[in-house]
């Protein structure tokens, strides 16, 4: 009895980093090391050191596409956190992604400096609208650190306020889902307006520099790619830890039987609210990494269709699993790039069918399918 007590106290005194490290098993460690080697060594080498005419050379297109998919994968993991583990489907995550992108895009716009087509200190679209000075919410946007702070704080705050009101009145199920969709729709309308001060229809584009480095140079691309990979790995490790902790267990319990959890004395509000806010913050980080790599952010990122596509990444990979969303985001987006290049007509047919087939026949996604196949083979050999 005494031994047991001692053990738990030492466990809770273990530093956070060690506790996170303990949450990973050996296979996960190996996978992480391999992924790190690929993302931080192999791909940069193939892009920078191998000459462009060699077949081993990775083109700009590949690095950008890869970086984009890594950002989408972070979004998918974030969405899985709230949908797969807490049972709350959000169709508004595009909003948090775009808000993060816009917050960082403001910094990138200011970095253009006087190199815009109007050679003004103000961003081009403001000159075009005849504005004489920056709106108040643009102050400080020339500082990198302030922008990073905005990326972390603004979307999180929006999510917190919205989530607080929604979860407090126990809005859930389809109600919550549709209201998140309405939220991102309303925000899209707002950002479409020129008077909102974020470039209206066209949003932000034509970025030139980031921290003084040219944004299109191969080195910058590789660094952004590696940062996205790092962010994804950290997200995965953290989500894995979180879901194995008591917090994660309570969350899953809320998903499966909310009233029972309430009767046991937990208040689901704070569990839901914190995971919702965390999910929004991860999305915002992904958005901030996405914008410098893709080179544009505009209000269409907030369209309902975008957010709902995020849900299908999670569904394809397998909701409620850690690695599933990453696989789903990768496969769906590779398919999208391939379709939109080869048969743009059929992409929507494919996507629509994917929605139906996954929900009807593969509710656990590809990871679920893999597990089922393995179990079947195991059953035969036994």
């Amino acid at each position: 009895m005494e031994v047991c007590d001692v053990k738990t106290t030492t466990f809770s005194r273990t530093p956070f980093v060690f506790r996170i490290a303990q949450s990973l098993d050996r296979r996960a460690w190996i996978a992480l090391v391999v992924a790190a080697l690929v993302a931080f060594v192999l791909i940069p080498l193939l892009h920078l050191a191998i000459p462009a005419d060699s077949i081993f050379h990775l083109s700009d297109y590949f690095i950008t596409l890869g970086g984009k998919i890594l950002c989408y994968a972070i979004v998918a993991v974030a969405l899985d956190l709230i949908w797969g583990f807490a049972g709350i489907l959000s169709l508004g995550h595009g909003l948090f992604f775009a808000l993060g992108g816009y917050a960082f895009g403001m910094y990138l716009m200011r970095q253009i400096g006087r190199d815009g087509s109007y050679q003004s200190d103000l961003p081009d679209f403001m000159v075009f609208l005849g504005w004489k000075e920056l709106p108040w919410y643009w102050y400080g946007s020339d500082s990198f650190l302030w922008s990073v702070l905005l990326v972390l704080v603004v979307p999180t705050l929006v999510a917190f306020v919205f989530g607080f009101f929604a979860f407090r009145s126990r809005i859930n199920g389809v109600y919550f889902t549709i209201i998140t969709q309405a939220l991102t729709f309303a925000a899209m309308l707002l950002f479409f307006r020129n008077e909102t001060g974020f470039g209206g229809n066209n949003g932000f584009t034509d970025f030139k520099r980031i921290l003084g480095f040219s944004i299109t140079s191969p080195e910058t691309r590789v660094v952004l790619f590696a940062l996205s990979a790092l962010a994804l790995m950290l997200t995965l490790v953290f989500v894995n830890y979180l879901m194995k902790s008591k917090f994660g267990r309570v969350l899953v319990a809320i998903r499966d039987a909310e009233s029972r959890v309430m009767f046991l004395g937990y208040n689901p509000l704070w569990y839901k609210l914190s995971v919702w806010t965390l999910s929004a913050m991860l999305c915002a980080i992904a958005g901030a990494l996405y914008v410098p790599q893709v080179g544009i952010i505009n209000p269409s990122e907030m369209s309902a269709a975008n957010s709902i596509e995020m849900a299908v990444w999670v569904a394809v990979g397998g909701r409620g699993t850690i690695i599933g969303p990453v696989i789903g985001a990768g496969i769906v987006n590779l398919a999208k790039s391939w379709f939109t290049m080869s048969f743009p007509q059929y992409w929507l047919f494919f996507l629509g069918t994917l929605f139906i087939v996954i929900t009807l026949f593969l509710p656990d996604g590809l990871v679920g399918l893999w597990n089922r196949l393995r179990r079947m083979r195991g059953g035969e050999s036994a």
Partner: protein
Amino acid sequence: MNFIISHLLSLLLLLVTTSAAAALDPAVLRDLASDDSDKKIAAIGELLASGDKQAEAVLRAMNDNALFVANDRLFYRVDGKALDAATGAAFPDAPDYADSVVVNNRVRGKLQNALAAFQLFNPDRDARLAAAKELQSNIDSSLIPVLKKALTLEIDPQIKKLLVLAHAQAKLHSPDPKERLVAVRTLSESNSAEVKSLLLSLLQKNGDTYAEPDPTVREAALAAIKSIESHLAWGEALSNVFSGLSLGSILLLAALGLAITYGVMGVINMAHGELLMVGAYTTYVVQNIFRTHFPDLADYYVIAAIPVAFVVAALVGMVLERLVIRHLYGRPLDTLLATWGISLILIQAARVLFGPQNVEVRNPDWMSGSIEVLANVVLPWNRVIIIGFAVGVLALVWLLLSKTRLGLYVRAVTQNRSMASCVGVHTGRIDMLAFGLGSGIAGLGGVALSQISNVGPDMGQGYIVDSFMVVVLGGVGQLAGAVWAALGMGILTKLIEGWTGAVIAKILILVFIILFIQKRPQGLFALKGRAVYGGV
């Protein structure tokens, strides 16, 4: 009575015109052809004052650039014949090439006013009304004598009222302050924004002096402006309420079907907006069939489109229910995703079949045009008819749900599915029929939408959120709730739009709904008892 009076009137007009049927004054005609615009305008005024039929013909020809000068004499061409401007008799030695009388913009304005003034004596009431309306804007003192004459002859009260206003406007610049005062007082009866700005121009300060020197007239003008403003405000409020009703009726048509399917099955059909699109495209196809096969009846294609759209959309809905939605029972979030997939497929199918551009659906003649309630309240017929249509659909749905056996079953399943199943209701069939009904109503909504907005592949996308909001506001499984919510949302949206613009209005409405759900999570009209918890 009216008949006799109008005959008397035309007789009188005949007398007026015949009495002046002598040849036009050649000096006036010469001025008409002079190079000086002021002289031209004066000549137009004199011709107008004569009230002569021949003078009207000459001015009309001048407006059509068909008045020519040859050897110091004027002639005009009508239907290829050359006629003498002074008498209207044939003009034999007309040269093939002659200079037409030049009409610049300033002269043309006067000319058109004069032509409108001539129409004031037309025996046809509609022509006189149109002329009187045209004279409401840009009027000047040269028309005073004509207006006076027209006023004495006019018997129609509506036209008379307009003429009084026009007359007052023309007198506004008369040198006599008493006449100006009377004019201003008369104008306070008006409800047009143009008269208001005209009066405002009197109050303008030019250095130390006002445009209007007399202080009593200025005071009267101020009072008149206030009175016009209040008329205008009433009109504006009225048109806001009307456009709110119109939006509400569209929302109702879109939300009614959703309310039924959500009530019965607890699933949100994200393809509901696309069923509206199916209805609208069906209307388009029916229109084209009528154009090619029954061109005589082309104006009535809308009536034929109503049942066809209902059946097509209902069939699409029932197929979806059988193939997809039925298998996702009890998984509302998955249903959401699957039906979104269906909507993507339907949109792309519409793009492939009909092209990505909007297609043209024409209003039939009996639906175009508008009725004027006040000067600034004009109600387009198509919107009025659609409000009526929505009321009709609502009545039918209500009858169906409350008076038929199917309706009884639908209500039973909505309230308590397992109990209904226990007492022998075939819930599977009811699901399919209810889904068909809801989809069919969406199809009807599509017919209505095709008459007032663009028909394109994406047209349904905007409606799903709005119609779901109506369902949320109204409460599940309640027709009355859906009706009040749709109308309330429509009117509220339009009123807020009036002072914030469309985008902010949309956001405010959303915030309002989120706050509303805090207070009443079960909507405006909650079902009583346990049914609410058994549902979703």
